[in-house]
């Protein structure tokens, strides 16, 4: 979004240089109950060998992969182009004279900020508006595995690339965030992620758990059903 040429509505923040190249990057996922770890993707169409996805997560114990159903229609995955992690990030442009707020789209499972957020210290650098940061499921409503996380990140990257050239406004972020939410719901209905039954708030915000939802082939086993 922060990008090329098209004349963009200026946002409330002083955005020094977001009109030059098209670069969006995204990072940071908060996964399961592990500390939020940097997950960064950049929208640059260059460099960064695709294989090196800049290890976002340190899934200490890789959570048990609970793949549900047998549905294996793989969406062609975008390779992630993470933002390289930075050192000495300071919170910037957070004060009142910059409006005291930030450009974001906040829904329950997806928070997108037009800023760099340091994964460890949570410093919030709003001057880096060429990056988008996604925080996935901060309330831990779902059980995430690295695989499903990466699917969401890949989808996010795809959307960010898709919206390249759009003005960097809340509206665009909301479009992206909503699409990611819909994607998460699809993952849930396809049985790829599950509700976290130990979540602090258990209100099944994406629909009550059920068996045989979106299950085209009837090869469910016992574990696939909701515990």
């Amino acid at each position, binding site marked *: 979004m922060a990008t090329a040429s098209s004349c963009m509505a200026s946002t409330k923040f002083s955005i020094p240089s977001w009109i030059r190249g098209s670069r969006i990057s995204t990072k940071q996922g908060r996964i399961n109950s592990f500390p939020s770890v940097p997950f960064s993707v950049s929208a640059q169409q260059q460099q960064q060998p695709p294989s090196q996805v800049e290890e976002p997560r340190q899934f200490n114990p890789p959570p048990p992969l609970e793949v549900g159903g047998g549905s294996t229609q793989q969406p062609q995955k975008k390779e992630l182009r993470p933002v390289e992690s930075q050192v000495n990030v300071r919170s910037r442009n957070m004060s009142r004279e910059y409006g005291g707020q930030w450009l*974001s789209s*906040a829904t329950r499972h997806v*928070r997108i900020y037009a800023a760099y957020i340091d994964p460890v210290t949570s410093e919030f650098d709003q001057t880096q508006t060429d990056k988008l940061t996604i925080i996935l499921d901060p309330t831990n409503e779902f059980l995430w595995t690295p695989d499903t996380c990466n699917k969401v990140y890949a989808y996010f990257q795809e959307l960010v690339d898709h919206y390249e050239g759009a*003005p960097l406004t809340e*509206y665009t972020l909301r479009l992206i965030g*909503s699409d990611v939410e*819909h994607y998460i*719901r699809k993952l849930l209905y396809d049985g790829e992620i599950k509700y976290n039954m130990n979540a602090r708030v258990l209100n099944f915000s994406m629909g009550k758990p059920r068996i045989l939802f979106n299950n085209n082939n009837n090869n469910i086993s016992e574990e696939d059903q909701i515990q």
Partner: protein
Amino acid sequence: MQGRLSAWLVKHGLVHRSLGFDYQGIETLQIKPEDWHSIAVILYVYGYNYLRSQCAYDVAPGGLLASVYHLTRIEYGVDQPEEVCIKVFAPRNNPRIPSVFWVWKSADFQERESYDMLGISYANHPRLKRILMPESWIGWPLRKDYIAPNFYEIQDAH
């Protein structure tokens, strides 16, 4: 059927069209957008000193947009004040209607809301910008041809 105000306007050579009376017997007039500012001033001078409500609506799919003004003449010692309802229609591809903010100051937020919901741009309004929707919103939500984006759970938490 002609109401008092309509007759008065005719007498002074002011262009309008009578739309009859509403269910409370209040006279309804249609006025062209280009005449509206001068007629508003005239009505204010005539004595309509109170803009009771301003609203707008989309008349029909693909049709006109309407901006509606309810005016009242407030005086001392009157228990049945004179009222009139003015409708101004504007084409939807370029809806421009002169603002009555400088005549009745209470039109301020209401015209902003009409702008926000239907995209009627009120000429000469001092700060015409969205008032209900976020400023970066695209589209006019109350138009009949508006398609709501497929947003998931809008909320203002950050």
